[in-house]
Each structure stands twice: as C-alpha cells, then as structure tokens.
C-alpha cells in the first residue's frame, strides 16, 4: 500500500512548516551519490515482485487456507499495480471486491477443511512435472508475445494521468467525458450504459441464486452424506475430546447422534 507514497503524486508540502526543524536537519544531509531513482518504478518492482511471488506461492502451497492468504496478498499487490498505473478506482475496486471475495473463499476454506484429510490434498509428482512444463511453455509464449511489439517496450511517459473516477462513472451511465485517444473517430465512442445494466442484472441474479442455494431449510429425505455421517460413529468425535461419552440422559440409547444433524427424520 505504500505505493500511494510514490514520488510523483505526493503532496505533503504543508508538513514542512509543521515540522521545520526536522526538515532542516534532513536538508543538512549530504546528497547521496546515486544519480536519481524513479520511485514509481521501484514501487512497481516491489508490487510486481509481490504479485508474481505470491501467485507462484499459491501454486506451490498445499494448504487451502495458506493458498487463500497468498492469493489475497497477490491480489492486493495487483491493486497496488493498478494504483501505480493511474487506475485508482479500479485499484480500490480490486481491494474491495476481489479481496473481499477471497475472504469468503478463505472462510469456506477454513470451514470445509475442518476435517484433517481435506486440509491439504497433494497433487502427484507427475502432475507437478507436467504442470511445470506446460506452465513454462505458456509463460515463454506469453512473454514472447509481450516483447514482440516495439511500441510496448519503450519507457512510459512517466506522467500520472488525470483522475479517472469521474469519467469512469460518467462512462458507465453512458456519457463519455474523457479525452479521446488520438485517431479515434468522433462518433465512434459510446458509453457503457448497456453493459452496466447487464452486469447489474447479472449481479442481482447471482445474488438471488446464492441466497437460494444457501437458504436454510429442513430436509425430509436422507442424503448420501447423512448415511455416511451415521456410518461414521459419533464416538470418534467423542473420544477425540477428553470426555469419555456425552451423557445420553433422557434420550434413547442410540441418541448419541444429535438431532441437529439427523437428516433422516
């Protein structure tokens, strides 16, 4: 997140006068011999390294929760890259939605891996080798493509673009206010009203669908999973804990299994 402190857009000039003695002290320091560092680029390297490193860590890790954590870091670093590219709104969006979505992944990872065998499902070594080979070839292909255009290779102009939130918002409601790129025909730029509406409806459908799938309901017919659950004696749970048995007081002898999971009634 320190990307926001990058040199091009920092503005804390007022602080100088809040802490003048400190500034004077610092100013007295001798100039360092390095010619000049573009902090923007350094931060880019930092975030790029984090994003790539954690992406690879996601592949390398076996534990679901750790994978989710690395994914969060990778996505967070990507948000930093977006900020550096001047897409502040996209960056904040990435933080809010993507990372928030991964949070849910994380929670599910924790919940679904309550049983020890599911914590890490390890792929076979042949799979690993195959993936490494395929991944390497894919990467080389992509990199070749990336380097193939000369215009992409040169250094950037190094100037922060105008804030994009307002034009973006206007574009989403169908009005283009941003500067058209060179060579764009005047009549050819349209807003994004229709896609915006489609996405809105889409999200609504997904929301309803998710609520439908996750709604609470009573079951009347047993599922295969319940048969499995009743086949797995509850005693395994009980003996794992320091309690010998739970008292089946007031319940039938077979009542060790709680009514809460009994789907078969």
């Amino acid at each position, binding site marked *: 997140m320190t990307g926001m402190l990058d040199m091009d857009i920092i503005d804390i000039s007022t602080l100088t006068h809040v802490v003048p003695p400190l500034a004077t002290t610092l100013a007295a320091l001798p100039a360092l011999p390095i010619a000049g560092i573009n902090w923007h*680029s350094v931060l880019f390297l930092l975030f790029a390294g984090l994003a790539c490193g954690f992406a*690879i860590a996601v592949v390398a890790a076996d534990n679901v929760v750790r994978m989710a954590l690395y994914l969060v870091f990778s996505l967070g670093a990507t948000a930093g890259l977006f900020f550096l590219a001047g897409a502040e709104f996209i960056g904040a969006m990435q933080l809010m939605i993507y990372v928030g979505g991964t949070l849910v992944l994380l929670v599910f990872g924790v919940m679904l891996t309550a049983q020890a065998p599911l914590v890490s499902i390890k792929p076979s070594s042949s799979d690993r080798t195959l*993936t490494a080979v395929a991944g390497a070839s894919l990467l080389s292909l992509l990199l070749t493509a990336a380097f193939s255009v000369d215009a992409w290779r040169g*250094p950037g102009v190094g100037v922060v673009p105008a804030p994009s939130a307002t034009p973006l918002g206007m574009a989403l409601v169908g009005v283009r206010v941003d500067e058209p790129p060179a060579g764009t025909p005047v009549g050819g730029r349209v807003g994004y009203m229709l*896609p915006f509406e489609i996405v809105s409806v889409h999200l609504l459908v997904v929301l309803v669908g998710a609520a439908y799938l996750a709604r609470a309901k009573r079951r009347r017919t047993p599922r295969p999973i319940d048969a499995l659950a009743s086949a797995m004696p509850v005693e395994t749970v009980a003996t794992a804990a320091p309690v010998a048995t739970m008292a089946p007081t007031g319940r039938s002898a077979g009542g060790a299994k709680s009514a809460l999971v009994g789907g078969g009634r």
Partner: protein
Amino acid sequence: MMGLVLATASVASLAPCLATIPLFAVNPFTEPVGVVHYLIVGAVLFTAGIACMTLKRNALGILMGIELVLNGANINFVAFASPYLRAEGAPTLGLDGQVVALFVILLAAAEAAVALAITLNFYNNHATVDVDRADDLKG
C-alpha cells in the same frame, strides 16, 4: 517456507535482471516503467493461474486459479489503458480498458459465488472437495 522465500526473491529479482538485457532498453530504477513490464506481471499471474487450475485437486484451489487468470488479464487491460505507461502521445485504450477491467472484477465476483455454490453442493454430495472424485458421469 524457504522455497517460498526463494520464489519470491527470484521473481522480485527477475525484473531488474531482465532490464539489463538490451531488449528492454529501460533501466527500471531510473526510468519510468512501460507497458511491457505490466505485461510480464500479467503473464506470470496468468500462467500461475493456469498452473493452479491444472495442478490442484482441491475445488477451492481451482477457484483460486481462475481468480489469478482473471487478474492476469486485468493487469493487461489496465496497462494498455494507462497513458502513464506509454510513450508520449501513443494511443491507449483509454477509459475502455479500465471499464473492461471493472466488468471483469464484477463478473469474477459473480463467478466466485456460483463456483462456491457448486463446490458446496459437491462437498455435500461427496464429503470432499477433491475434484478427482467427481467421476459420477464416467461410463
């Protein structure tokens, strides 16, 4: 753990190393980065995502792979959209790139919700999240 550190370190050092070869003609410490730098990151993320999808047997792992792939693509969109990364006056995608990235993020959230629902149903029926066991349709 050590492997992780090494991987991170090697990737972090990848960019400056690449910068020294004449292909780039950019010193990342002193000059502004260009589109190609973002494309490299996008490529790495994309590849990692694909690898994740193929390698993992855990349904959640596959889901994470998909997220990575979408992110890799998003980085490209943003990079092409950013005037910062291009030479003076060079054409960019402009706002369109950002809007597409925005839609990708939104749809990814929707996709995650649906995929999670599928995973959950799968878990309900199979008591596992190992997708290799999803062979009910096998003849």
